[in-house]
């Protein structure tokens, strides 16, 4: 071990294992994380090999890694707690899966959204029929919401699902190029099913956006089905293995029962049963946004670990003077150290939103939707702040490593690519802030009317009463 790092570790004033246990939640969780990491990395190829592969070979390697790690984690889950979710799929879709796969995971959306939406948005019958198959990877799916011409602005989506009561089917159609589904991970060549977010029309009348399960490829041959125009969208800044895809639908017919109908429903006679709360459509995205905040926190943790160790080893100074560690320069401290604190701050905040999500999910199941707007606001603002901060911090970490940070082998480029994607997926950050801004406007109306505020916004009411800020101490 480099003597500078030995010295740094000897001079530490606290117990590192105690910190790690606290950081991961408790000793058992930290132990489990180590166990999983060990299992996943056993016999893994050198990630540097990916840097010299062709685009298609990177994708193939990504699928191989995703498949192997899924099998390993399922086996571990079965050994430790059959039927539980503490390892699989939770960790595969989050920290460990991403860290292990520098090219990205082509099945991440299947794990994070497809299976979750089938369970959370589908009826029990729909879950029995498709959800279980998805959980067992008999079918692989993705979640297609964004279109070439419309992103976070959901009401602008152009893909249509017209109900045809003569055949008891929906006709799914992308009427313009701008309606093509664009971006979903795995859509290109990996999945054979897809949840398509489309505008529901009954007798030509719009009923807003709803979710539809569409088979896009034959289960045996994997060839695209009639009416399906599907493919890979090409290289991006990062994530070359994620297989982001496009999807055009030419009057594709699906049975009525393939609209996910836990909340809103279309009956056989074409009558429409409204969802009790419109925000329920957005609930899967709340979960994903909390997961994004977690994921980006760990990308930043990776980058700041690299930069801090490098800054302790690297020595630099004016000519004819003994070379100090660059970490002793206050300018280098200012670049690197605040981001260590950011990792801890975002780890805690993401954990808080995660807990609130699980509490709210229970409330929703019991018919209480009161905390949905609050959770929506928190997950939006946290996702936006965390993805933005981590992206720019990772770039700062790269620059804090001087020219060597530019080497692909430093891995800071890959980490940046993974982190920066989060600024635009699951809601472009400015659009999310605007949504939160609207919720704040409504909350301010509550302040003026002296109505009770949501717990995490209650400070607005308390501080609004201050005539001025108290004496600065």
């Amino acid at each position, binding site marked *: 071990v480099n003597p500078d790092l030995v010295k740094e570790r000897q001079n530490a004033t606290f117990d590192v294992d105690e910190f790690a246990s606290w950081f991961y939640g408790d000793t058992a969780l930290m132990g489990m994380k180590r166990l999983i990491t060990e299992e996943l990395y056993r016999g893994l190829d050198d990630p540097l090999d990916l840097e010299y592969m062709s685009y298609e070979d990177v994708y193939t390697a990504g699928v191989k890694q995703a498949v192997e790690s899924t099998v390993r984690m399922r086996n571990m889950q079965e050994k430790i707690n059959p039927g539980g979710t503490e390892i699989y799929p939770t960790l595969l879709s989050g920290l460990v899966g991403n860290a292990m796969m520098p090219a990205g995971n082509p099945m991440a959306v299947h794990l994070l959204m497809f299976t979750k939406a089938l369970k959370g948005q589908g009826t029990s019958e729909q879950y029995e029929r498709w959800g279980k198959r998805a959980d067992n990877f008999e079918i692989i799916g993705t979640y297609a919401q964004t279109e070439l011409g419309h992103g976070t602005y959901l009401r602008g989506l152009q893909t249509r699902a017209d109900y045809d009561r003569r055949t008891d089917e929906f006709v799914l159609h992308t009427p313009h190029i701008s309606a093509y589904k664009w971006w979903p991970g795995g859509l290109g060549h990996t999945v054979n099913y897809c949840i398509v977010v489309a505008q529901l029309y009954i007798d030509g009348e719009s009923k807003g956006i709803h979710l539809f399960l569409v088979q896009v490829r034959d289960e045996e041959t994997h060839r695209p089905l009639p009416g399906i125009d599907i493919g890979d969208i090409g290289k991006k800044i990062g994530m070359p293995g994620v297989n982001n895809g496009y999807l055009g639908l030419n009057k594709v017919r699906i049975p009525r029962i393939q609209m996910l109908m836990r909340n809103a429903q279309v009956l056989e006679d074409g009558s429409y049963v409204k969802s009790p709360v419109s925000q329920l459509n957005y609930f899967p995205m709340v979960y994903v946004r909390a997961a994004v905040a977690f994921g980006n926190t760990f990308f930043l943790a990776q980058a700041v*670990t690299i930069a801090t160790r490098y800054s302790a080893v690297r020595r630099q100074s004016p000519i004819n003077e003994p070379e100090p560690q660059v970490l002793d320069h206050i300018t280098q401290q200012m670049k690197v150290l605040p981001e260590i604190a950011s990792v801890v701050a975002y780890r805690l905040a993401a954990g808080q939103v995660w807990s609130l999500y699980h509490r709210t999910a229970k409330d929703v199941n019991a018919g209480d939707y009161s905390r949905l707007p609050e959770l929506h606001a928190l997950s939006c603002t946290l996702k936006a702040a965390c993805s933005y901060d981590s992206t720019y911090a990772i770039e700062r970490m790269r620059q804090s490593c001087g020219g060597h940070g530019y080497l692909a082998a430093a891995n800071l480029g890959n980490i940046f690519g993974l982190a920066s994607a989060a600024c635009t997926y699951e809601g472009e950050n400015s659009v999310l802030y605007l949504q939160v801004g609207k919720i704040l406007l409504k909350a301010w109306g509550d302040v003026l009317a002296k109505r009770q505020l949501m717990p995490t916004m209650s400070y607005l009411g308390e501080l609004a009463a201050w005539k001025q800020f108290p004496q600065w101490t």
Partner: protein
Amino acid sequence: GSWQQLVEALQYAATNKTRLAHQHYTTRLGAGRTQPQALNETGIELTQAAELHGRAFVTYTFLQEVTGKAAAKRSANLNRVLEQLLELYLVHTVQRHMADILRFVPLSEQQIDDLQTRLELVLKQVRLNAVAIVDGFDLEDRELSSVLGSYDGNVYERILASAKKSPMNKRPVPVAFERYLKPFMRAKL
């Protein structure tokens, strides 16, 4: 108390940004703008208020963790490190949003100077444990996958080893030499 006040400064800025956004939005509606028009025209203030709301939430959560009941379950040494990280995060975040805060909180030059002193002091404190803290993130070498960040710190050896793995180094003379470079250099342009 001081940490609490830094969090409150962010909350106070978020509160007043929200108040102003609401006021300007309402004025626009009153002037005959449609709701979407008024929202669009108030967009800058709305996004700023939303960002501050998020910052206030993150800092408040951090403060609660460090000063709340959970602290009793941790060793004094770990708590001291977490307090330093909180101090660094709060001072740094308040400095980042100083323009927003100054709009609503009348700080003197001396008070702003004090924050800079606090920043420089806490940087020194955190620097002492920086390597150990990132060790505590518990990311092993294969997760980091970086020649610069390995646990053993043997940076230069790893950089050179990775360079040796470049496919370009598999043969001493590249194809491009015979095909392009040599004819080019002998062409006597």
